[in-house]
């Protein structure tokens, strides 16, 4: 049976990138539809009326939204190269760390990025606490998934690209190889994995985009 798989994404969305990686890891053929966030297509609005965001996966005409939900759908639908472990407790832990990444890591890193001076120093405290939890989770493992890339690696994968870019923009080392050796090594190993490496968004574009975001946020905050 022919499978029709389409992915609505933007060129830079780290959430959509999770889906690109998952589809590539499983060897699933798909069509990409690039969205312009300032001018969303009628299709996107039709397929994700609640949030109107990317990514959206369309499988045989049926839409699935929210990247972690999409990852689980992909894992349950295409059984090759499993992303989640089999054991229920290990699955629960994988879901926990993925959620931790979205609920805590993202926000705390962003806080460091959009602040300056003393406020930035203060924002580093919770960011480091959160990153230390990830460091602890990597003990004895190459990837969060163990020997191979798994669900948590895909969920946290944005760190391997974005951290370096943000550090360059603000001139601040966030993931220090001495303080967070395992996380640093993971960023390298994950970032260098062929499927991952081939799909990073254009570096120059990302630097421009995030520099502009930072400037705009700081300007708005000082009004």
């Amino acid at each position: 049976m022919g499978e029709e798989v389409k992915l609505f994404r933007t060129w830079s969305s780290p959430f959509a990138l999770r889906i690109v990686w998952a589809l590539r890891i499983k060897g699933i053929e798909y069509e990409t539809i690039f969205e312009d966030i300032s001018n969303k297509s009628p299709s996107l609005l039709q397929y994700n009326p609640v949030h109107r965001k990317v990514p959206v996966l369309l499988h045989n005409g049926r839409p699935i939204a929210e990247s972690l939900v999409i990852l689980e759908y992909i894992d349950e639908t295409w059984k090759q190269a499993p992303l989640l472990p089999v054991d229920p407790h290990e699955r629960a832990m994988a879901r926990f760390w993925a959620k931790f990444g979205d609920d805590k890591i993202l926000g705390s890193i962003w806080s460091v990025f959009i602040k300056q001076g003393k406020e930035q120093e203060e924002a580093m405290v919770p960011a480091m606490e959160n990153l230390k939890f990830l460091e602890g989770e990597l003990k004895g493992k190459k990837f969060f998934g163990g020997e191979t890339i798994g669900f948590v690696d895909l969920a946290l994968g944005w760190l391997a690209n974005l951290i370096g870019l943000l550090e360059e923009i603000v001139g601040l080392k966030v993931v220090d190889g001495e303080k967070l050796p395992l996380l640093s090594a993971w960023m390298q190993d994950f970032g260098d994995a062929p499927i991952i490496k081939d799909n990073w968004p254009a570096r120059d574009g990302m630097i421009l985009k995030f520099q502009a975001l930072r400037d705009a946020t700081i300007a708005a905050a000082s009004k």
Partner: protein
Amino acid sequence: MADEIMLLDWWSSMFGMRVRIALVEKGLKYESREEDLNNKSPLLLEMNPVHRKIPVLIHNGKPICESPIIVEYIDEVWKDKSPLLSTDPYQRAQARFWADYIDNKIFQLGGKIWTSKGEDQEAAKKELMECLKILEGELGEKPFFGGENFGFVDVSLVTFSCWFYTYESFGNFSIEAECPKLIAWTKRCLQKSSVSSSLPDSLKIHDFVLQLRKKFGIE
């Protein structure tokens, strides 16, 4: 070997209630421990060092945290009785989507209603009603969000129903007036013993919040 199940909980937590419902649905015996959130037990800090929050399910000594993750865990381990999620991946994805929607909206908006006033409160009320209307639309004509059977999304949302009276009192509005089908659904859910035995009385929640408001100086 008999399963040892413990739940670290707090009586008024909508998140703890979800786990209670799931455990009862599966017919499981468990020990419930009420935490003092102002003086968290060493066990809680050991079992949930990252968030230090309840609920935490401890199954044969291993902790599981975050209520949607706990409910999925329970559904996966005890899969032969009262399944909460469909076996179909697309239905499962829809259920997870709506549970995520509920988690991102209802708690924060409801909380804003009883902790704020004036324009902030009005904005929270308006947004809460919009979200509840969207959920009511998703329910449609089905008896439950899960279809014919009570399921994952029902568990995720019904635990807020005992907080509705509190939101309505302090916000001075009626959820039933704008979402009658949703309120009918809550009543249908309350007919299930798993739900009625897991939710505290709405008035008790209201009185508790009244005390909290006095304590925090919110008029």
